[in-house]
């Protein structure tokens, strides 16, 4: 609220505009619009590298209520290009807070808009599908902004990973030891919560996204984990060919983008969803046990079930729209999930997937 009457405008590629007030950095932003239906966890969402290239609309109207808690950030800085909220709160003293969302957005150069009808915007995205848009705090005339929005590159075919992967291989968590095998992690923009969850069961070595497979294999990990990340998986030809080289040589696991890349590596196809799944309340059924857990989702692409090669089975499915949410294969050994068992933010129902994955991996390697 501290920016007062400072106007901001959001212009969608189909011409729809929303006028509100600017929040965060005094800059403009561009990207594809997605909405997230989580009611809390704005900090985790804002700092999730998977949102690179996207401007995130929070459907819950009050955002920023409890301030900033650095330990809850999923990366060093916001991944989302902009934050679009109904109302930014001035936090009032959660005992653990170190600052406000507005301060963080300013410090990191992330702009945003508030005071707009985010529900109208959400329904619009639901109906129109993925829309490119410009958020401006400097130019308030919609016409030039519309031109800019229409000239933005589309998500499809863009490699957004190279901007968020780590620069050098590095270790995470405790070193390998008894009962603590080494897991290689390809970082496509990995969330800190994934590393933390994996580190409960494995010693981790994290690799930049384009490191050749043989470099990873040289470290003799028991398995390779493919992380989450932003954008279109089909555009990531180097990672896909690396994964192809790994298939059959080590068991492969992965989450979200990593799941999509694995699918592409075994010959399946991915597709862009109409508006994706972004939230913490979707039912995911484990097709092995039949049990349903509330899953955390953040994906705009999905694996086309019809394209799965023989021998690959669906391990998890969304009950909302039947989207494929996990796939498994015995040969080559592969088990990946589309949803986010690490949560952060959202329900912890998926946590038990990590020990299950460990058991599965250990069984594969005898």
């Amino acid at each position, binding site marked *: 609220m501290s920016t007062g009457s400072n106007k901001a405008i959001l212009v969608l590629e189909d011409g729809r505009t929303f006028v509100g007030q600017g929040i965060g950095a005094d800059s403009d932003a561009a990207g594809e619009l997605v909405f997230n*239906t989580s009611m*809390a966890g704005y900090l985790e969402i804002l700092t999730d590298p998977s949102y690179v290239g996207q401007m995130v609309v929070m*459907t819950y*109207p009050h955002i920023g209520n409890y301030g900033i808690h650095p330990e*809850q950030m999923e990366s060093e800085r916001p991944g989302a290009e902009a934050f679009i909220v109904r109302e930014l709160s001035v936090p*009032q003293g959660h005992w653990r807070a170190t600052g406000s969302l507005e301060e963080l957005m300013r410090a990191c150069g992330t702009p945003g808009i508030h005071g707009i*009808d985010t529900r109208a915007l959400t329904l619009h995205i639901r109906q129109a599908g993925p829309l490119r848009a410009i958020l401006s705090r400097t130019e308030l005339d919609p016409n030039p902004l519309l031109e800019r929005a229409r000239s933005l590159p589309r998500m499809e075919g863009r490699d957004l990973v190279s901007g968020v992967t780590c620069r050098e291989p590095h270790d995470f968590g405790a070193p390998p030891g008894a009962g603590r095998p080494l897991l290689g992690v390809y970082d496509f923009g990995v969330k800190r919560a994934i590393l933390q969850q994996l580190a409960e069961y494995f010693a981790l070595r994290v690799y930049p996204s384009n490191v050749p497979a043989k470099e990873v294999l040289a470290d003799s990990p028991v398995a390779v984990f493919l992380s989450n990340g932003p954008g279109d998986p089909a555009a990531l030809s180097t990672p896909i060919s690396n994964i192809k080289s790994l298939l059959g040589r080590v068991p492969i696991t992965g989450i979200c983008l990593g799941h999509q890349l694995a699918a592409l590596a075994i010959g399946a196809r991915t597709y862009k969803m109409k508006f994706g799944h972004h939230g913490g*309340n979707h*039912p995911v059924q484990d097709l092995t046990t039949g049990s349903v857990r509330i899953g955390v989702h953040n994906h705009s692409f999905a694996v086309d079930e019809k394209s799965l090669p023989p021998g690959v089975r669906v391990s998890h499915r969304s009950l909302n729209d039947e989207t494929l949410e996990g796939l498994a294969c015995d040969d080559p050994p592969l088990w990946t999930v589309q949803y986010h068992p690490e949560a952060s933010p959202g329900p912890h129902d998926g946590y038990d997937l990590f020990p299950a994955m460990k058991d599965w991996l250990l069984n594969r390697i005898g």
Partner: protein
Amino acid sequence: MPPRTDIHHIFIIGSGPIVIGQGCEFDYSGSQACRALKADGYEVTLVNSNPATIMTDPDVATRTYVEPLTLETVTRILEIERPDVLLPTMGGQTGLNLGADLAREGVLDRLKIEMVGAKRDVIERAEDRSLFKKCVESIGLQVPASGYARSEAEAHAVGETLGYPLIIRPSFTLGGTGGGVAYNREEFHDAVQRGLRESPRHEILIEESLLGWKEFELEVMRDSADNASIICTIENFDPMGIHTGDSITVAPAQTLTDRELQSLRDGSLALIRAVGVETGGSNIQFAINPRNGDLRVIEMNPRVSRSSALASKATGFPIAKIAARLAVGWTLNEIRNEVTGETPACFEPALDYVVVKMPRFNFDKFPGARQTLGLEMRSVGEVMAIGRTFREALGKAVRSLETGTDGLDLPPENIPDGLSEEERRSFLESQLVEATPDRLWWLAEALRQDFSVEECAEASRIDPWFVDQVAQMVMLEKKISLSADSLDEDLLRKAKRSGLSDATIGRLSHRDEKEVRELRRRLNVWPVFKRVDTCAGEFEAITPYFYSSYEEETEVRDVDDRSILILGSGPNRIGQGLEFDHGCVHASLALKKLGVRSIMVNSNPSTVSTDYDVSDHLYFEPITIEDVLPIIEAERPEGVIVQFGGQTALKLAGALAEAGIPILGTPPEVIDLTEDRGRFQVWMESMGLLQPESGAALTVEEAIALAKAIGYPLIVRPSYVLGGRAMRIVYEEDELLAYLQEAWRAGAGRAVLIDRFLEAAIELEADAISDGESTIVVGVMELIEEAGVHSGDSAAALPPHSVSPDIVETVKDLVRTLSRALGIVGLMNMQFAVKDGQVYVLEVNARASRTVPFVSKTVGLLVAQLATRAMMGIPLAESGLTADPEVKHVAVKEAVMPFRRFRDVDTLLGPEMKSTGEVMGVDLDFPTAYVKAQLGAGMALPHSGRAFLSVRNEDKPALVALAEELHRMGFSILATKGTAGAIRAVGLPVERILKVREGGPNIVDRMINGDVQIVINTSLGRSTVRDAYWVRRAAVDLGIPYTTTIAGASALVRGIQRLKERPLVPQYLQAFLKEQARLQGTA
């Protein structure tokens, strides 16, 4: 898994009468459960003593026992019915306790009935605090440090180990009855005594104080395949220490990080599994220390609850319906989310709005009661409001309360003058520290007077985020005051988005409400309507459940078909409860049957009318002109029905008519005429009707002169009130003067009516429907207390049990005459007094009355539906109604009083209504129906023991006959001096007992010692009231059957007689109705 095929017949226990702590939310849950299970093909038998409910409508369950919810009666019903399973989780704490008792007593085992939803061991683990503590600790969480006591000595031992302040909670009570906080030894001593007495197990828990911690509730669902989800998180605006039913609550939680929320979620899921709730919903409460994040589990309800009703309405997820279906084996993923129509019910609703619930208090009914809020629930109802911001929702909730406030400003007279700066600050601070029903308004006042957010949060322990929200509202008030002459679009929009009402904006900018509305219209600051869709817009919603907001885009479309709007009755309060919702629901059902789209507007989350599947369109909105007009503009209905929504709806009739909106049925000017007592009096005189002498007064002088002319005793009543608000019987001039001021306040400055009070008359009440041509009197009831006791507080019998058929015919003729003369279309209710063979007209109400559901159930007619059809222009004959119904059975309605909750007030009945709810007993004769009603109301009539009699002189002749009968039945008689003399004079043995003021041991001492089983104490005159007070108070506190009228005493004695003759036999309502239909030749 498909639902279970090994069961066919399901038994459901309802929650009984509305009492504080257990309100109409269980009608919502029970009716959902019955309907869902019947729709799944099961045979459903229901027991519930509450006639005002939708669930006891004869078409809801397969068989409906309107019988007392006692172990004995329900056991008999189970023996007759032999259901396969018992579902105890739909009837509140009453249903759950009864279910547990039936299991504990071996009834269920003996009859091979399985408990579903929550089994006995589950109930015990959730309800027994030591078992619960074990469960909580087994999942790595903590409950507050505590210890149990079953005696005072044990209590003191526990208290010493914990240190003050201490919380005292009796085991197994509802709404925290008997709970309290003790800051010192003396308070502790009192609280322990009371707690031990209130607990049915004579057990209390003494625990560490978490006063000032943040309080949260989670609503959890689990199915038989162990799928579980959280339906809603609720955060209390008020901190720990105030009963959650008396707290302002907010959904979803606002001030917790995702990690904190998830830890509550993890804890809730672990706990529902540890306690072992296999299917259904549970509610779990947590406290968090705002200074360090420490977490405690406070309690768990393994059943649907007040909060789950709220959560259902807040999210659009029908918890009760789904819990019922899970109990018979469905799993969450097999049940469709009806809101989206596509996705399964196995998900967690996502909200894109804020929901605020506010409690509705009725302390005005109980002068003398301390208004401090604490662990024991005191509110009688609640409102819910939905907005796109907390402030918008809070503003709407405040407008919905109908406590005479439409904003956060206090009446100026509440703020003391002449205080120094320091005194003013310390006064305001004290108002923040002590929680009362007005604290929100004091918070706003403190912020207005430059208290900082931090200071207010520190004093009140309300989270600073909430305080800041209120501060933003106060800031806007100031801005409006400063730019009163130049209100622009931007400021108005901000104000409306922050929940400021037109009336508030008007007060601040020197305009009236209408001018503000016109200004907004010119500036296009007008609300739009958004949908409650369970999924924050992610999927298309097919249920038309709307709320307003000052946003850009509306979601109301396709309104071209015929539609009618029904105004609901708002929050429950004494005098306007569930009975009115019953009418609104039936109005909606009748419209749907006629193919007319029904639009419901209501603000009460506990009701059936706010179920999204009752009406074609549902608007969860305050029932004020500001909020209703935009709905009418959006929906363009043919007309509005105001007859069913009590005063809440009627109040709007004038303004709606002024705005050119057709009111269906009886014209507003007729309603106005009947509600304005002064004008109506004149009209009645012109009709030549016999009434008690009376007149209207606008000044004190007029009143005194009138009183002298009529002669005392008198009834003083204000115009336009329900439930006899501020109505009194006065015996002398001093009393008259004292009451006049209050009456004028309650009646908003309109005339005060002064009537002669017909002492010892019999009161009759009639309900009728008219189509404008013919009028059918659907029921004539005889009140069991004499005239002078409010009809809502009096037991009543249908048909009358003591007046002659001629009198009944006279009454019916009077109803028809007045109906025709007034031009009634729809419902009408009249009250009469019969004295010395003369019938006096006391009151005419051109609207639905409180008795409509009771009459409907007794005579087997859907009275409100028939009235709605009449209002839609369908002649009664076309609806099959050609003659007044005759009943062959007898139904008795008994009122249920909240006096246990208000420890400092008198329990004497009078013309101001005090009861919160009612029960019904039905059988083939009056005494049996009466006994059933008494049992239903919680008065277990004794077979033997001691009767205490103390009556005023006029009652002595009648009393002697009763004393003889009591003696004949083996009762010993205790009486005060005068009464004892009268009894002794006819040769009956009697023991004289001292009055309280006469020293000790007196009657109250004997009552406390358990020596007294019945109390008959009539003292209408003021001179005896103080003395009788202690006796009545003790009777209430000790649960001894008592009556304060001779007519009531007579019914009581007849009831005991009946009870001793032969056992009661339960019978289901449909059997009575079928027999009646057969006799009338209509079946």
